[in-house]
């Protein structure tokens, strides 16, 4: 059905796409010294691409995660994958040393992240989802427990680690947009492309899946299978974003809800686009401000955390009536 609301949303999305382009152009061109144009571009273009990829992964993963959990105030960072990421990197440096190929080669280290996070999420959440009948509370509870579990192992490791090794480790753990991991751009794009291709059927089912297990089954959809596959996809997309820019998936909460509020629709094709565009605008415009107004004094993650926190409270308070 091509309803009026659907067309109105399409217009909103086109406008947002234009804003994304505008922000990207501004990011590339503001205060660029014409004498060193190509040098400036060689620094700025990879950063821009990394931000766009991160916004894409987080924006898409957040909407999908919220829809399969059937709750709009959760973000995939509740799965505990961020602390698993931190643990993996610490463990690699601890066991193999920061000079080893596992830690020094960005692509190898990225592959390790993807495999471990993917396997862990499938085992833990795939199993848990079936055992608990897709009970969101258990998923969130286990996520919280895992977060502190991974966190305490990680801090134990850092305590017995060689201080010099710890120094090198820190730079990969607190990645920010001023310190992006642009070596893995191609690898990430490939992962995302494979992910979208492999999950295209499940993604198309998202609208039906959000009707709940009984209704989806009634309409002939294999609910459990699709949920399992999508959950794995969410984890891998988050792994991509985390590996590129560090743990900022809290942003997913903001952009997913902004998109839901703006578009007021159930169509995931539109919701995901909206969330992705919001993410791109926030990241690129935010980084522009961080670099040129605050001259890097405050990293963008601070803004996202503060802004996200306030927005989260607002959501909690306004959702009470439901």
């Amino acid at each position, binding site marked *: 059905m091509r309803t009026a609301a659907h067309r109105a949303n399409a217009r909103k999305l086109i406008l947002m796409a234009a804003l994304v382009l505008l922000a990207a152009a501004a990011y590339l061109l503001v205060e660029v010294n014409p004498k060193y144009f190509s040098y400036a571009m060689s620094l700025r273009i990879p950063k821009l691409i990394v931000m766009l990829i991160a916004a894409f992964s987080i924006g898409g993963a957040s909407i999908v995660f919220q829809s399969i959990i059937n709750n709009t105030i959760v973000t995939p960072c509740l799965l505990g994958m961020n602390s698993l990421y931190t643990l993996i990197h610490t463990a690699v440096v601890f066991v193999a040393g920061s000079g080893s190929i596992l830690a020094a080669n960005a692509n190898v280290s990225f592959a390790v992240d993807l495999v471990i996070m993917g396997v862990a999420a499938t085992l833990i959440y795939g199993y848990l989802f079936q055992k608990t009948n897709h009970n969101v509370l258990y998923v969130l509870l286990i996520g919280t427990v895992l977060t502190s579990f991974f966190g305490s192992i990680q801090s134990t490791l850092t305590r017995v680690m060689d201080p010099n090794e710890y120094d090198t480790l820190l730079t990969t753990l607190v990645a920010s947009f001023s310190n992006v991991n642009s070596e893995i751009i191609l690898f990430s794009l490939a992962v995302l492309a494979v992910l979208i291709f492999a999950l295209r059927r499940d993604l198309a089912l998202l609208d039906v899946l959000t009707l709940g297990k009984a209704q989806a089954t*009634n309409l*002939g959809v294999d609910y459990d299978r699709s949920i399992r596959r999508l959950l794995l996809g969410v984890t891998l997309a988050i792994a991509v974003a985390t590996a590129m820019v560090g743990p900022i998936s809290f942003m997913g909460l903001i952009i997913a809800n902004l998109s839901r509020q703006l578009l007021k629709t159930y169509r995931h094709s539109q919701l995901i686009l909206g969330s992705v565009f919001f993410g791109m605008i926030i990241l690129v415009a935010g980084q522009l401000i961080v670099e040129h107004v605050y001259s890097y004094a405050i990293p963008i993650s601070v803004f996202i955390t503060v802004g996200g926190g306030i927005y989260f409270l607002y959501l909690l308070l306004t959702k009470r009536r439901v």
Partner: protein
Amino acid sequence: MKVTELTKQYDGKTVVDSVSFEIPKGKVLSLIGPNGAGKSTVMGIISRLIARDAGLVDFEGQDISRWKSKELSKRLAILTQSNQIQMKLTVRELVAFGRFPYSGGRITAEDEAIIDQAITYMELDEMQDRFIDELSGGQRQRAMIAMVIAQDTEFVLLDEPTNNLDIYHATNMMKIVRRLCDELGKTVILVLHEINYAAFYSDYICAFADGKIAKFGTVKEVMTRQTLSQIYKVDFEIMEIEGKPLSIYY
């Protein structure tokens, strides 16, 4: 459809206890019985929503679990007892999901006509563009039923369809059930707590108590003082109106 020796346990407690019955094709069958008797569980099992522990559910010559879910969704539709949908969805969009088994996400002109008809059946024309989370409980229930009707299947299973509906809409609902059966030849299985609706509008009644079938038969066979008082443990009187048995309980 034929059900044999169906059994289901929850945490060691048997909630459906070797239930066997045959669903007469092209008729209206009502399931009645006290809360917790196992009606919804039986409905869930015969529509593949709930896994059984033992027994057979034969649907058109093949066990229900061997059917492709997608194929089944064109032959059998179910409205479950509780439905929580959290999406921003209008009534019309919800009803359109009933066409999903046929058209996927792409609604054809033919689908639109069927959706229109289902909406008109449930008298939802005026509110078809409203969001379902902004409707009253009864209005939402009617929208859910319209979705099941739009699914246009030979077998229609409705778990407490009159739940939340006022007398006018509940009666209208029951008339629609009759039309689905008489005019369109569908087989309708409902769970009802209003015994008189079951008596007036169905062909057969299956009475459940404690996970077992207490009585299965035509309306006249089941609607007796003795059977009903035994099942519900309440005093009953049976009267006859328009040749149909109706009950008074107190």
